[in-house]
């Protein structure tokens, strides 16, 4: 014989089983001494728990709730539209700042693309390409380049 589960026993006493299941459980209890004893113990426990009564009189929170709700209603916007209205000035300021920053950045970028450095001055003794590279005539690398160039063009002869 399958006994009643603990949760079914609890729900049977609480009256939470379906009608058909309640009948089945009742019939089983009548035929099963073990389950009958379990039911009896649960009933006694339930009766003892019943003795802890709670009286909520004198603990009214209605006025406090009303006052705080009123205050909350004044502090907070009540709709998305009101949120937008409230924050529009800040949004406009932020958008303007971004536009200004982008515009300035673009202008500064224009100057840097066209070359903000002054044109490179070259002299007969200082080839233009060396001057553009910022290399000094006296640098070892420049000498090597010029010597190679002279050899290629036969300038040394």
């Amino acid at each position, binding site marked *: 014989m399958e006994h009643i589960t*603990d*949760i079914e026993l*609890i*729900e049977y006493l*609480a009256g*939470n089983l379906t009608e058909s299941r309640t009948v089945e459980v009742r019939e089983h209890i009548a035929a099963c001494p073990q389950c009958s004893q379990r039911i009896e*113990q*649960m009933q*006694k*426990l*339930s*009766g*003892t*728990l019943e*003795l*802890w*009564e*709670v009286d*909520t009189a004198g*603990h*009214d*929170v*209605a006025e*406090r*709730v*009303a006052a*705080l*709700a*009123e205050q*909350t*209603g004044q502090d907070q916007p*009540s*709709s998305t539209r009101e949120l937008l209205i409230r924050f529009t000035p800040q949004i406009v300021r932020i958008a303007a700042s971004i536009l200004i920053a982008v515009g300035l950045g673009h202008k500064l970028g224009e100057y840097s693309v066209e070359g903000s450095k002054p044109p490179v001055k070259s002299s007969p003794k200082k080839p233009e390409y060396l001057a553009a590279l910022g290399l000094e005539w006296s640098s070892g690398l420049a000498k090597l380049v010029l010597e190679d160039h002279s050899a290629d063009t036969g300038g040394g002869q």
Partner: protein
Amino acid sequence: MAKNKLDDSALMSRLSDGDMSALGELVCRHQDRVLEIAFRTLGKWDLAEDVAQETFLRVYRAARKYKPKAKFTTWLYRIVVNLCLDEKRRRARNGTSLEEVTLETQTEPDSDYAEKKEIAQIVKAAVDELPERQRIALVLHRYKGLSHGQIAEATGWSGPAVESLLVRAYANLRKKLDKIKYFAE
């Protein structure tokens, strides 16, 4: 239509339109059950009142977005349970205890009233000693008449979890209370 004739969803709809008297009606209608759950869970009236107050403030703040998917009380219980759990965790972090067992001594314990009152204190202490989720499940089941399915819906815990909590809660209470005269009879 008189507000006391409107159901909870209708009152929430009025509240979302700014009708503060609808909030008053909801508080009037439900504060006793909210206070009872909070007191049975937390054990102190000042905490129970704070939780009840915050519960209805959350109801108010949620009014505009409220969509009645389930019973209003199911949603209300969810708020109360979460607030009670938050309060217990907060006190646990601060190292303060909720336990406040005061067994009143009676000079004449023979009187039935005094004896029942003493037993009530013992029952309260026994329930207070339950782990928090067992306590909540027991309070909702035994004192608010919710089935284990309804408790699962109200708390967001799974059905099997609630079943287990209830079985253990009742088993623990049986152990703690088996010496009481009323229980032993």
